[in-house]
């Protein structure tokens, strides 16, 4: 594992991007690399949750720095709702192949077939049901650490999250009883059946992520940048018109210039109006936004003040 030839070590750095005022990004990257190595060393069966979204692509870039390209010492795991944007799935597969990484895909539809996921109605969002499929995958592979690209600036419940977040055998987060996390002395001890969720980019903000994408030339699925798309306006959001999310009676379909700030399940993710064609444009837009990433884009988080917290308690990542 992780064999690297001696000549590779003597190669020049992977790239020398233009350095602007980068001390903060450097510090974040270094923290992330440190945590990624800690997971590789401290756990027996870790995995990295990889959706093909921007946060997981930034994590992968940091993993390349931690271990060298092509030598990430854990498999990638995708929990597939079956409701993905095709550009994202295609890019996910492409990156996994380029890196020679082992990509495991487990799908909510399989859980539905097994009867472990029951939808209340066929049109229900499958997003929250990912928790069931995720826990099934954890049991199947006996994963003891799952690295995720969640950030504390995303949402109020996320803001409370430890970097090494202990989960009991039901995968539950216990927000009232989190382990103290002192300095960088991470207590990674587990009882059988328990696991950790690990969040190496906890301290990054949406802006940091985009500045890093720009600086490191991190490739992203095309829908993160401006494109023309059929949408309808609904409760202040731009809902993409797809087979899964058809227009409702009385709604007018319009073609708008949009991009996605975050991608996830088609049924819960909305784009924002934008002409940003590259990461530099997005950085400038992010500097001047007045609505949060989730507020602008997520249909599911608006239903309840505590919906993320509830999902996390149920085992959601």
């Amino acid at each position: 594992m992780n064999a690297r030839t001696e000549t590779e070590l003597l190669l020049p750095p992977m790239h020398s991007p233009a350095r602007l005022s980068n001390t903060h990004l450097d510090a974040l990257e270094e923290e992330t690399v440190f945590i990624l190595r800690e997971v590789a060393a401290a756990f027996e069966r870790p995995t990295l949750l990889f959706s093909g979204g921007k946060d997981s692509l930034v994590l992968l870039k940091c993993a390349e720095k931690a271990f060298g390209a092509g030598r990430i010492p854990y498999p990638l795991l995708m929990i597939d709702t079956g409701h993905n944007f095709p550009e994202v799935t295609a890019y996910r597969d492409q990156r996994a192949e380029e890196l020679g990484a082992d990509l495991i895909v487990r799908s909510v539809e399989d859980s539905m077939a097994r009867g472990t996921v029951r939808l209340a109605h066929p049109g229900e969002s499958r997003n929250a049901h990912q928790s069931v499929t995720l826990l099934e995958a954890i049991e199947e592979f006996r994963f003891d650490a799952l690295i995720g690209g969640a950030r504390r600036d995303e949402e109020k419940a996320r803001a409370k999250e430890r970097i090494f977040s202990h989960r009991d055998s039901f995968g539950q987060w216990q927000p009232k009883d989190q382990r103290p996390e002192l300095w960088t002395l991470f207590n990674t001890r587990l009882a059988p059946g328990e696991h950790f969720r690990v969040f190496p980019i906890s301290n990054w903000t949406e802006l940091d992520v985009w500045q890093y994408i720009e600086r490191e030339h991190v490739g992203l699925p095309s829908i993160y940048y401006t494109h023309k798309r059929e949408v309808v306006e609904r409760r202040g959001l731009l809902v993409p018109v797809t087979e899964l999310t058809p227009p409702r009676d009385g709604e007018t379909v319009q073609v708008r210039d949009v991009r996605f700030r975050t991608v996830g399940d088609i049924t819960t993710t909305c784009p924002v109006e934008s002409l940003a064609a590259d990461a530099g444009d997005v950085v400038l837009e992010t500097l001047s936004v007045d609505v949060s990433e989730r507020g602008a884009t997520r249909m599911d988080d608006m239903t309840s003040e505590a919906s993320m917290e509830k999902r996390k308690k149920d085992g959601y990542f």
Partner: protein
Amino acid sequence: MSATTATPATTDVHGDTGTALRFITCGSVDDGKSTLIGRLLVDSKTVLQDQLAGVQRGGETDLALLTDGLSAEREQGITIDVAYRYFSTAKRKFIIGDAPGHEQYTRNMVTAASAADAAVVLVDATKLAWAAEVEDGTVVKRELLPQTRRHTLLAHLLRVQSIVFAVNKLDAIDDAGLAFERISTALNAFAEAAGVQVAAIVPISALKGWNVATRHADWVGYEGPSLLELLEELPVTVQDEAVPFAFPVQWVEKFSASADTSRGRRVFWGRVASGHVEPGQRVTVLPSNQTATVAQVLSHTRQPKVVHAGHSAGIVLDREVDVSRGDWLLAPDAFEPVREITATVAWLDDEPLVAGRIYWALQGHRWVKAKVARIVDRVNITTLESEPATQLEANSIGDVVLSLQQPLAVLPFTQSRALGSLVLVDTASHKTAAAVLVQPAAAKA
């Protein structure tokens, strides 16, 4: 801090406002911490429209709701765990740890403080008996709240570089000038008795925004900077550059042209705990005691270079020696590994520390068994005096002697954070039970 580590630590510390400042807000419950953070976020225009809309209650904006993100917190109106928040001004980026005030959740305050460059201890002026002057001919001692004292002591013990008192809710007091003066006197007296250096005492109204982001001119006789202006100038934590080289091995990477990884050299990855590392340097391995010379130093950009304290490095040695995760590479003859340490512990677990029990201790990446040989004493938070103790309950601070199953290289925490800090973990529950701060060897016989 430059992750590429080309700059020595001396240029990367004092006053480097290009580096994000990590600070915590702490103090007693209801002293207004969440409101203060809400105010900082709103006044620095970090709060976005949808988030602000989410904290409107009955036509009023409740700033505290911006940070209390758990439903149990909103139900009870208290903060249970640290909320981390991010904001920037034109001058600098900030990471705030909003620590809970309740004694029950002291462990979460300690979690936040262990990573902080600065602590803002909130003091609620309306809760203190500052008005009473003379009673039976003697000046009444103006008592601070126990959690103000506890949090200040913990921040000090954990070597949080700057401790700032923010005296809040002065807008609710008629004679605010006198209140601020007397509370400042009490704070200074307490700090002096505890040996705590105070960076500043700032009068504020978190609710009204006075002296938070912008100065509130001609108020309570205070002419200093606003809290935010002060934070923009505070230094980030100094790394232990002056201490001899020490390096805990985090991860061993094997590389070899052949599939037989037992042959060929290995890279030892980790974060430099103290000093610096460069090719040609001699090192001793703990625990094997073998010595070797550093052949090559890597960072994750793969360039050989000097790497300073606080940054990650990959070290290649000139010959095969037995080194695994958890071992330390040390400057030769600079450390005397010990089997017994005297340490101050902040006890965090609900199960009390018991003399005679064995715990897991973690230093760097090394786990050793540690037995509590004896409890030396416990600190009385009110009087600051030591008192005898047979056990340490949750949220207490005391001194203990630990005997270690295997020798560790330690330094007093006041000299080196990395070599002087350990955590204790309960062997049965696996809970993180204590923050351990090593004392000078002969401090308490």
